[in-house]
């Protein structure tokens, strides 16, 4: 079984204008192995997988399946060869049910009529066998991201795919969901399915993969056995220089409270209860306060309530001494900047140029307009300055359409914009989601630098590593309430996990209560 290659991609070269995305890359995938593909954003991982999935045609190189050369012109060819892919951004139809999404494109029909009962039985069997819990009749728009991903996985299984590609599957998952996914992947591998696992999270790669191929700047740096390597050497291979995996920061010097929240309630869109239920806390100048918790425990709504995107139904929010509980979003923006959770929904107008996006809140300021006419020169100059200072890379500089930029650089643009507004409070929601080591290192250092300038940073994160290394103080949210306040220096990941799962909580005096 050892040397049996299911898929071989030999000397693949794929060029885009001005850039060689894949330069003579060879990748061999053995039967029953989990093969990780590691690289920074822009290293060519997704391009390589898109070539395998038939989305791009390579200029040079051949693809072999079981030793036979094959041509993959489009995803249908790939499916026919048993190749399935879970994309980073899910390809699901939001208004369809889970079942409809799974069978879409591979429907069983009888005389043109759908035979959903058979399909349902098959999906249910698969779901049970691999422990992939999904609600087949729920609409995709109503289910969590974790479940959406399980739907994507079931889609591949439903098509009896043997080669499974996972493109950054853990970027959107909670720690528990990640563990489940890892277990499922190992289960697949045991059954002889072969998995290509694209990631830049070293922990996961170390935990789950058998071999790792590292890409850097479109070139293959090498393939190593996971058991013969470690995190540090992998990250050095990936980035090409020694990387700092831990955040270095001086002890916080907390000052006066910048943000005071008292009894804040925000109603839920999904159920009748409050998504944020009588939450009180304060964020002080010069500290990074982290709201930790499993996705969907009210963190999003808390941020919406603070920033004004959603109306609160009770309680007060005081920012810099001013009651902003009912203030407009723009007014709140006077003292607050906000790095939003969803950069495509809230963070950017994707069809606008980078420079237009960089002044999204500031276009009305004196320096950028005269009598209602936009001062384009000033906007461009300012954009150029931010691009330079924050190293936002794009094809055409300030006039690049935001949509065409890579995720990491879109995020950098948002961070540049928000940090540069120099507001006393920065609300950063999952600022490093889906980014590579280099970009994370950079964003973390930016947030620490802002803290050291005396700003209050309210960080909402789902990633335990980030919570532990970056924050000065941790608040844990569970079912819309704050169940604990922890000091990252004195707590452990395990303890934090217990609070996040609701197994532990503190009373008002900070004393531990019995399990809720």
């Amino acid at each position: 079984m050892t040397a049996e290659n299911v898929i071989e991609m030999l000397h693949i070269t794929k060029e885009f204008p001005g850039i060689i995305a894949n330069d003579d890359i060879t990748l061999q995938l053995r039967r029953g192995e989990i093969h990780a593909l590691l690289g920074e954003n822009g290293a060519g991982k997704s391009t390589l997988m898109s070539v395998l999935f038939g989305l791009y045609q390579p200029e040079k190189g051949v693809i072999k399946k079981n030793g036979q050369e094959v041509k993959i012109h489009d995803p249908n060819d790939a499916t026919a060869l048993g190749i399935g892919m879970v994309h980073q951004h899910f390809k699901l139809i939001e208004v369809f049910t889970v079942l409809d999404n799974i069978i879409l494109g591979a429907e069983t029909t009888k005389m043109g009529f759908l035979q959903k009962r058979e399909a349902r039985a098959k999906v249910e069997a698969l779901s049970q066998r691999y422990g992939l819990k999904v609600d087949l009749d729920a609409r995709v728009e109503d289910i969590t991201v974790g479940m959406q991903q399980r739907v994507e996985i079931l889609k591949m299984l439903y098509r009896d795919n043997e080669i499974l590609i996972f493109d950054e599957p853990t970027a959107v998952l909670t720690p528990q969901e990640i563990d489940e996914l890892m277990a499922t992947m190992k289960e697949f591998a045991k059954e002889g399915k072969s998995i290509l696992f694209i990631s830049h999270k070293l922990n996961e790669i170390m935990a789950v993969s058998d071999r790792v191929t590292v890409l850097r700047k479109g070139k293959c740096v090498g393939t190593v056995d996971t058991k013969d390597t470690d995190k540090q050497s992998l990250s050095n291979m990936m980035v090409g220089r020694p990387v700092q995996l831990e955040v270095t920061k001086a002890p916080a010097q907390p000052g006066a409270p910048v943000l005071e929240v008292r009894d804040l309630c925000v109603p839920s869109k999904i159920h009748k209860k409050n998504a944020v239920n009588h939450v009180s806390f304060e964020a002080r100048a010069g500290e990074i306060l982290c709201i930790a918790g499993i996705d969907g425990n009210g963190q999003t709504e808390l941020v919406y309530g603070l920033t004004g995107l959603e109306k609160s139904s009770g309680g007060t929010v005081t920012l810099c001494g001013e009651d902003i509980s009912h203030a407009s979003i723009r007014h709140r923006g006077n003292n607050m900047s906000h790095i939003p959770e969803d950069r495509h929904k809230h963070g950017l107008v994707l069809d606008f140029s980078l420079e237009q996006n960089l002044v999204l809140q500031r276009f009305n300021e004196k320096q950028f307009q005269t009598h209602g006419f936009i001062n384009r020169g000033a906007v461009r100059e300012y954009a150029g300055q931010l691009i330079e200072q924050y190293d936002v890379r794009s094809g055409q500089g300030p006039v690049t359409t935001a949509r065409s930029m890579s995720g990491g650089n879109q995020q950098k643009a948002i961070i540049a914009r928000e940090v540069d507004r120099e507001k006393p409070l920065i609300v950063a929601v999952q600022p490093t989601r889906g980014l590579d080591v280099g970009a994370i290192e950079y964003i973390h250092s930016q947030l620490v630098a802002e803290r050291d300038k005396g700003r209050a940073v309210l960080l909402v994160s789902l990633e335990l590593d980030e919570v532990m290394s970056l924050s000065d103080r941790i608040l844990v949210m569970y079912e819309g309430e704050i169940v604990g306040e922890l000091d990252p220096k004195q707590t452990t990941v395990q303890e934090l996990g217990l609070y996040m799962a609701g197994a532990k909580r503190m009373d008002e005096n900070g004393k531990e209560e019995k399990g809720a």
Partner: protein
Amino acid sequence: MKNQGKTLLQRDGTKTVLASLLSIVIGLVVGSLLVLLVGLFSDNLGLSSAWEGIRLIFFGILSTGRSAVGNLTWGFNPQSIGNMLFRATPLILTGLSVSVAFKTGLFNIGAPGQYLMGTMTTLAIALGIPSSALPGPVIWLLAFLGGMLAGGLWGCIPGLVKAFLNINEVLACIMTNWIAANLVTWFFDATKVFQNTVENTKSSYVYKTAYGRTLVDGTWTYVDGNGVQTAKLGLDKLFPGSQVNAGILIAILIAVGVYILMTKTTLGYQLKACGANRHAARYAGINDKRNIVLSMAIAGALAGAGAALYYLSGNTEFYWHTYQTLPATGFNGIPVALLAANNPIGVIFTGCFMSMLNIVGLQLTNLTAYNEYITDVIISVIVYLSAFSLLIKMLLSARKKDKPEQAAADTPAEDGPAGEASAEKGGEQA
């Protein structure tokens, strides 16, 4: 900068123009086929009439009638061109109306209703103020502004409903259209004074604005020539025999104004931000509700302005039994905007094109045994195709991608930046 390294053919704008031209050509070809079929299967037409019809469809604007021996003659026809410009005036404005709303992410199918409200208000002001009370130009201006205001207010309704109750603007627009249609009929029916009784051969028409409200022997009557008309500014000399007036110049000025509004001002920036991503606009503190209402108000005002310019010409009559039909000018704003890809400057040209088809239809009726409805078919084909213009654009791009050296220039927009610098630093493809 934006199109650095791209040849003219590969620019996005060029593709848009090409897609629109292609829609137009296909529309004309389909019209020609229809003319051919009708010609072949009709007793009093034949292949030669069909050939004449086809030539008229493509070049009807340059037709000068028939020679003594009965052949079609061609040349510069000032009357046709003047009338084309005159009829283009309201189309340009309803086209602008649709495109402004579209940029804010709204589909203004309510232009006919806004147009009607504009018509009613303009006529009521122009015919209601006694010609002795104010100088003509002042009455004209009041009537014009009144028409805009009425259209704008009418446009606000779907905007408000959309912004505050989240009811689809298309539904609200359709309803307000018919409300306007009935309201206008009721108004002219109930007020009676504006009904044209001088030319008693006509029924259900309102006075032309050339008629002025005048006190004759102690009773108010309407006297021809005492009313208001849009100035000709010598355009009638340039295009003798046509209805053209300064309205077209005003329409062009407004189009340029809209272009400036949408591309150069903070208001346009906000409107477009709301249209492109309402969530992000809200996040940035832009008042999305206000902008939705504002956008619909501007759209309505533009449609109202179209109506005002059309009826203030002095020689156009308004048939006030509108409760059964909505003005085509309002709906035709949609293809005008679509063909122009919502570009305000483009709207000037597509508006002229649509009115040209109108003239072509008249030429067909006048010079051949065909009737003008052929041009309606052409318009409808073009409407279909312009709705597909995005598809056509994609096809244009796809065709180029087959050629490897050109593929190079197309992909970066979708797949990531391509500059040398970013390639050096690691690129952004993944």
